């Protein structure tokens, strides 16, 4: 460092506008912080969650008088026919629904304006809302009246509500982005001032993208001009100004590259180029994946329902604990009179009804909404599995069963098909086309097609063939009997997506050099041996990619289950659909989505660990 400053002392070009430009970057950073701060503090929802303003209402007021809902002032002109004794009850309600409303009641004798003293008849009931009744402030002029009630919510601030208000209005991504822009741009300003060449290159890159964004801004200004009072000029001016500023700085930095010291490292240049190329992907990622996912996550922390009058409340992770509530309990047998277990006439042990036993012995079993799902008898002992949301748990087990069976079958069939298509024979081109037929049919339609084929009775082709061949005596209800449902789904999915697997595996097979097999032939290795010791190991990375994409698709399976099984049996995605569209439980359904996301994430991590995908 000392050396560098020595050389700098000998020759250092004029900085020119550099201090101004650095200052602009720092200002931009500070601006981002100020913007974030004002955005949050000026947001009424967020402020209300902290301040919890009071809404006033009154009953029993003399005719002609009204209470202002926001300020609590009772104003108006008492009509001449309004004389009498009134019992007035003022209710102060906090925006926090967990706070009990406060009340104040007083009697009011109207008739003699001179003797307008009103006295509270009772103390306000205990409530976190402090209600102050400053007394009667009658103006004696004529019959104009002004009474003021003041109340304040003195309970603790509801952290959940504050958090929710923040998340709902700003999300997570935008504040983080604005904050990082602030930090980054201040750092950039300082580094620029220090004449750091790497920073200047990054600044140029950033400005280039800003300039492109500015062009879109100008276009937006043109389109939007009609909606703004000032017309074209007002709508365009800020964008044109920004574009000009950005272009000015950009051009200045490009022209004055010589004032920056040192040379850009290759790493920095590579990283810059890489992110440059990734910008469109990042934008799409943020827009269509990250933002919606963020909203789903935020909604999953609430009890939001569609078309509900009530504001959604923050419930923390309640939705998740309900979804994932699962317990396994040991059920002891009924005791025989002489000790040991009681047995029935078949010699089987007698057990109490699991539900009754658990409700009696397990505290809060019923309060938490547990219900027995299944019983397992193991070595004479009995275990009961109970879940809070048994539909979801069975959806998860259906989906996992479906995924494991169908993906393994697809792998085996796909490998077979790929190897056949990979060998040379006349008509290979047609075979390659035929291979993609099942995949080319839209899933919604192929599901309907299988519905036709799997129909009950003889109109369904499977039943007809099996009956004709004498394999079964009675037609099978593929889609309604719970023994066959998931297997039928596996059949449809295997048929539908094996081509995808086969296509990717085919690609992997074609890369394997023929020389390897020839050498193996020379050594006299059998075909089976060749398959296991050459094909499979060399194909492993390809199998990895294929497995990842197929598994992710299988875990998310929707169309097939939805069309063929509807509400008879759920996959995770159709269960999600059901809670969302039919149940209208937006918060709960969002939690389902997040749980599915986490399950898939676990699958991916497992694949990456086991198969080493993506590593160079």
């Amino acid at each position, binding site marked *: 460092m000392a050396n560098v400053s020595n050389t700098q002392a000998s020759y250092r070009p004029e900085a020119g506008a550099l201090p101004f430009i650095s200052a602009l970057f720092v200002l931009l950073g500070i601006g981002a912080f100020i913007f974030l701060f004002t955005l949050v503090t000026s947001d009424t929802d967020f402020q209300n969650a902290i301040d919890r303003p009071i809404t006033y209402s009154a009953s029993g007021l003399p005719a002609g008088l009204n209470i202002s809902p926001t300020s609590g002032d009772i104003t108006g002109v008492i009509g001449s026919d309004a004389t009498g004794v009134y019992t007035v009850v003022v209710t102060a309600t906090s925006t926090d629904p967990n706070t009990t409303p406060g009340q104040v009641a007083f009697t009011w004798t109207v008739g003699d304006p001179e003797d307008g003293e009103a006295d509270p008849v009772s103390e306000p009931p205990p409530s976190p809302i402090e209600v102050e009744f400053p007394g009667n402030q009658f103006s004696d002029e004529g019959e104009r009246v002004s009474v003021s009630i003041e109340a304040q919510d003195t309970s603790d601030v509801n952290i959940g509500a504050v958090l929710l208000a923040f998340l709902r209005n700003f999300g997570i991504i935008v504040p983080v982005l604005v904050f990082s822009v602030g930090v980054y741009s201040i750092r950039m300003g300082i580094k620029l001032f220090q004449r750091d060449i790497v920073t200047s290159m990054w600044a140029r890159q950033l400005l280039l993208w800003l300039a492109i964004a500015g062009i879109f801004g100008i276009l937006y200004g043109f389109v939007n001009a009609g909606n703004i009072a000032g017309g074209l000029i007002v709508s365009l001016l800020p964008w044109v100004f920004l574009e000009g500023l950005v272009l000015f700085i950009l051009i200045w930095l490009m022209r004055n590259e010589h004032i920056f010291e040192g040379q850009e490292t290759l790493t920095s240049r590579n990283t810059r180029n890489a992110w440059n190329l990734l910008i469109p992907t990042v934008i799409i990622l943020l827009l269509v994946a990250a933002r919606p996912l963020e909203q789903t996550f935020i909604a999953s922390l609430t009890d939001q329902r569609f078309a509900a009058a009530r504001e959604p409340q923050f419930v923390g992770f309640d939705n998740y604990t309900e979804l994932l509530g699962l317990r396994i309990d040991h059920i002891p047998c009924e005791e025989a009179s002489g000790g040991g277990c009681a047995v029935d006439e078949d010699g089987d042990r007698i057990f109490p009804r699991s539900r009754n036993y658990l409700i009696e012995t397990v505290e809060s079993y019923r309060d938490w909404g547990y219900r027995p799902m299944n019983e397992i008898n193991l070595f004479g002992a009995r275990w009961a599995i109970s879940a809070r949301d048994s539909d979801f748990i069975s959806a998860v087990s259906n989906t996992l069963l479906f995924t494991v069976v169908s993906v393994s079958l697809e792998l085996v069939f796909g490998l077979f*098909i790929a190897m056949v298509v990979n060998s040379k024979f006349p008509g290979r081109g047609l075979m390659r*086309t035929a291979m993609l037929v099942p995949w*080319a049919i839209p899933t919604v339609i192929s599901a309907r097609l299988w519905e036709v*084929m799997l129909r009950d009775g003889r109109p369904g*082709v499977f039943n007809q063939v099996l009956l004709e061949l004498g394999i079964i005596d009675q037609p099978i209800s593929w889609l309604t009997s719970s023994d066959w449902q998931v297997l039928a789904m596996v059949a449809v999915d295997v048929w539908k997506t094996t081509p995808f697997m086969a296509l990717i595996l085919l690609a992997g097979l074609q890369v394997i050099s023929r020389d390897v097999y020839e050498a193996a032939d020379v050594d006299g290795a059998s075909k089976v041996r060749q398959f296991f010791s050459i094909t499979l190991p060399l194909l492993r990375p390809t199998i990895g990619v294929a497995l990842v994409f197929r598994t992710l698709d299988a875990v998310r399976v929707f*169309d097939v289950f939805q069309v063929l099984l509807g509400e008879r049996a759920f996959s995770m995605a159709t269960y*999600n659909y059901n809670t969302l569209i039919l149940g209208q439980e937006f918060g709960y359904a969002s939690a389902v989505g997040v749980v599915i996301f986490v399950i898939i994430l676990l699958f991916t991590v497992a694949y990456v660990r086991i198969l080493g995908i993506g590593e160079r």
Partner: protein
Amino acid sequence: MTQNTAAANVQAGAAAESGTRKNPMQMWLGRAGFWLLVIVILFFLMFPFYWAINTSLMTETELFNPARIWPDNPTTINYDSAFRNDDFLRGLRNSAIVSTVSVLLALVVGSFAAYALGRIKFKGRMLMLYAVLAMTMFPQISILSGLFSIVRDLGVYGSLSSLMVTYPLLTLPFTVWVLTSFFEGLPAELEQAALVDGATSFQTFYRILLPLTAPALVTTGLLAFIAAWNEYLFALTFTAVAPEARTVTVAIAQFSGRVMRQEPIAEVMAASIVVTVPLLILVLVFQQRIAEGLTAGAVKG
């Protein structure tokens, strides 16, 4: 030394010859077994499609007779009514537009990203690869409402653009991953030569590497096209208020029976054959390239 190698080669050749020279009976059996396998696979792949054709040639009442391998009185009435259905024809056109735009978008954006991820060493590479993969980690239904509000905020709700904006969610992850592994497989010398000649990274990318990836682009493009062509849930949701923007899958799902309260299954099957045929033609045209593309790509994750 060279003579030795040559001798070894001759020996190896002879060994290979003798290895393949089995007795004719065995060879014949092997051939027959192979063709049997081909037929079994073809049957497995094509039977449901054949059944769709079979069903599409029946009248609705025939559908309730016991299944037969060929309808007694084949009829094209279902195709006629599909082609007379304006919603269906408009759906075909919409699907073609949306799928084409989605493919182009996925290929342009995806090849940029794949080049960066496959050829450049930089901090955050693995993170980006998994961020892209994370796009496929939740069911479409889970983010439907979030996506809905974004589509509305962008002002494209109820138009074809809403689908063009959202379909990258389906097409991009796969495109990026396959193209990335493709780029990784290209020899490094190509770029080094270009860099020595003073080309920028971007020039290297679109002058030298991109033309080499043409087969892979065709393959992933085709897969992306099929994905967009077949999409149903987004199309159903985002075009709910705009019948004129419905894609063909939605149009077919909304076929209403001529007979009261009865699903026109045969007509749906006829329409689905019509929908699948363009894809099959695309595949047939490009099938040579598919193999090439993925081969050259050396999909290796």
